[in-house]
């Protein structure tokens, strides 16, 4: 690792000023599990590293029935998977967090880092998409909120501007008749990057699906919603035939690449299979 100056600002404003002052030569540090890898192989060589650990109010999980869930950007994956409210009501997010690396990695890795890194394969991205997450962004002078679907621009690229910091994620309250699931296709059970990740969330009303959201990871330049598949399910009662159609639509809307690990055609088949499976599970979970 090249050497760098290390800062531990105590406020968002201070962190933001440092980012502005040092521009492209500075990197924010969350848990470091992406950044330190980059610094070790020298694909990232910051002269200034600005840790967010000492900025108060950036870590934690809060919930109430009116405002829903808030998760601070510095919250560790391990805290998410252990949170009972996240497990019960925002299940896909707990499952996404639990898929990241190992326990040792999840005790370091933060939700903010997973998303700010901009990886199309980030394991929490599909869940945040289907749980309607809003991304809270601040720069010390003001705050803005961006829907997670608009946060990503492309691989490694996000809407974060110079001096901006991702502070947290808000998700609306979820009805008792809602359910969600995230599934990741991988070869090794632990510590493997997603070949494909799919999250589905539904809410039911009078035996039909009132709302469906399907999020796909690792099969497009950024995490995307399978809106055509969602439209097929929403407003209907679930049948095998319906889910089969939706699965096909999700596969068609994905644009995976072929690489050493897997062909694009195979990735599309996995998108279809996981779409069907997560939709069935989400509906089953909504019914209990």
């Amino acid at each position, binding site marked *: *690792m090249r050497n760098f100056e290390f800062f531990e600002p105590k406020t968002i404003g201070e962190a933001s000023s440092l980012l502005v002052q040092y521009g492209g030569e500075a990197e924010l540090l969350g848990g470091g599990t992406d950044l330190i890898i980059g610094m070790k192989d020298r694909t990232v060589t910051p002269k200034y590293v600005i840790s967010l*650990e000492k900025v108060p109010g950036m870590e934690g999980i809060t919930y109430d029935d009116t405002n829903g869930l808030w998760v601070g950007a510095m919250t560790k994956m391990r805290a998410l998977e252990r949170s009972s409210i996240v497990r019960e009501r925002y299940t896909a997010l707990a499952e996404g967090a639990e898929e990241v690396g190992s*326990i040792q990695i999840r005790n370091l890795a933060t939700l903010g880092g997973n998303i700010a890194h901009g990886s199309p394969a980030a394991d929490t991205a599909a869940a945040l998409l289907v749980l309607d997450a809003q991304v809270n962004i601040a720069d010390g002078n003001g705050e803005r909120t961006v829907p997670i679907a608009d946060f990503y621009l492309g691989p490694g690229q996000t809407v974060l501007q110079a001096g901006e910091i991702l502070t947290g994620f808000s998700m609306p309250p979820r009805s008792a008749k809602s359910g969600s699931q995230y599934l990741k296709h991988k070869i090794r059970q632990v510590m493997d990057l997603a070949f494909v990740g799919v999250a589905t969330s539904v809410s039911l009303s009078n035996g039909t699906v009132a709302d469906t959201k399907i999020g796909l990871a690792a099969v497009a330049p950024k995490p995307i919603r399978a809106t055509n598949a969602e439209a097929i399910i929403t407003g209907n009662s679930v049948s095998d035939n319906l889910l089969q159609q939706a699965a096909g639509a999700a596969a068609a809307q994905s644009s995976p690449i072929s690489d050493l690990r897997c062909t694009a055609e195979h990735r599309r088949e996995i998108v279809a299979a996981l779409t069907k499976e997560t939709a069935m599970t989400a509906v089953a979970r909504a019914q209990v």
Partner: protein
Amino acid sequence: MRKHPISFTVNGDLQELFVEPRKTLLAVIRDTIGLTGTKEGCSTGDCGACTVIVDGEPVTSCMMLGVSANGKEVTTIEGISNPGELHPVQQAFLEKGGYQCGFCTPGFIMAAKALLDDNPDIPEDEMRHALGGNICRCTGYTKIIEAVLSAAETMRANA
């Protein structure tokens, strides 16, 4: 580059050091403090050989900066036994032969200790999954799993 003053405990001993920001916690533990029980396998977070416990939770110390340990409590493999008495997980690895070359062993023991401290009743399948961040190139894992199961039994009996 400016070194940073940090102060933290390792196995209960206060360490007050000046460290370069680029040094990982693993490098600080091994090279600066001289506790070489913690091993460096991959240095990319994948193998778990460098596992230590920070504020009660296991982490890969190759993926954490030393400066980030400031104010925290770190436990390494050197810090889990009592004088003349091994930790139940260490004892079980010894009795079950849960190692061959031994390089992965400190990391496995720290990960298993943290896991069993959290839940000594953990079912075997969950335990195997939870230890997925630790890699062994020698044993084929059978004896390691036997050791952790046996340690769990001891820790349940002691609880």
